[in-house]
């Protein structure tokens, strides 16, 4: 599997950057001519991961979020969203649908959306060091049934 294109973004954990992050990944994947549904899934999953950084990783102060995206010659998009925030105490618990530590009308569906909309989700986290969420999705080709 060869990487045919890649990009990296760093931005401050401000909520206004959620739309910037998802729009950037959507633009990056466009050369593979994804379906409207695939593009919508990717934008939604990226938005969830970036929102998690803003709400949970850096709850009290702003920090830096780093987003890398890669495309492989097998039409796979790999997006990694990293923060250097507080880390996740219990990853299995955090990934349970409807579980949230937030009190501000969060639905607790962030990871459920990522898992449902992407082919693969990996989470690595260390307390006080940060979290990295990797999202993978295969983009269908015009030869595939759409």
């Amino acid at each position: 599997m060869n990487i045919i294109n890649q990009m990296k973004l760093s931005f401050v954990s401000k909520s206004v950057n959620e739309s910037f992050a998802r729009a950037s990944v959507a633009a990056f994947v466009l050369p593979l001519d994804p379906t409207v549904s695939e593009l919508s899934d990717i934008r939604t999953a990226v938005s969830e991961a970036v929102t998690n950084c803003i709400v949970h990783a850096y709850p009290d102060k702003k920090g830096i979020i780093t987003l890398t995206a890669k495309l492989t010659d097998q039409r796979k998009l790999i997006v990694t969203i990293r923060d250097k925030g507080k880390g996740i105490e219990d990853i299995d618990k955090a990934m349970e649908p409807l579980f949230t530590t937030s009190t501000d009308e969060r639905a607790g569906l962030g990871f459920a959306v990522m898992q449902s909309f992407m082919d693969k989700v990996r989470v690595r986290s260390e307390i006080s060091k940060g979290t990295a969420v990797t999202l993978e999705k295969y983009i269908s080709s015009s030869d595939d049934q759409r």
Partner: protein
Amino acid sequence: MVDISYQNDVVTALLYGEIDHHIAPKIRNAIDIKCETHRPKMLTLDFSGVTFMDSSGVGLVMGRYRCISLLGGRLEVIHIPENIRKVFSLSGLESLGVLK
């Protein structure tokens, strides 16, 4: 973002554009102020103009359900685009019967 109107005991919120964690609190405040002022029998959230929504939109709807229920009214969510219904389908909101 949102246009809100009140007529015949119904508050209608016409949502448009993108709903995420940045925008949702602004929509929430606008709707809640209108509902607290008029105490309507029905709150209608019209999603026909929404082009993107993540789970922040689910939180927004769940919160308005609680809010309007406390005021003695009902909630309905109408004109949900297909890509957005997919997000709602993970939420359990369908079992409340508010998604039309």
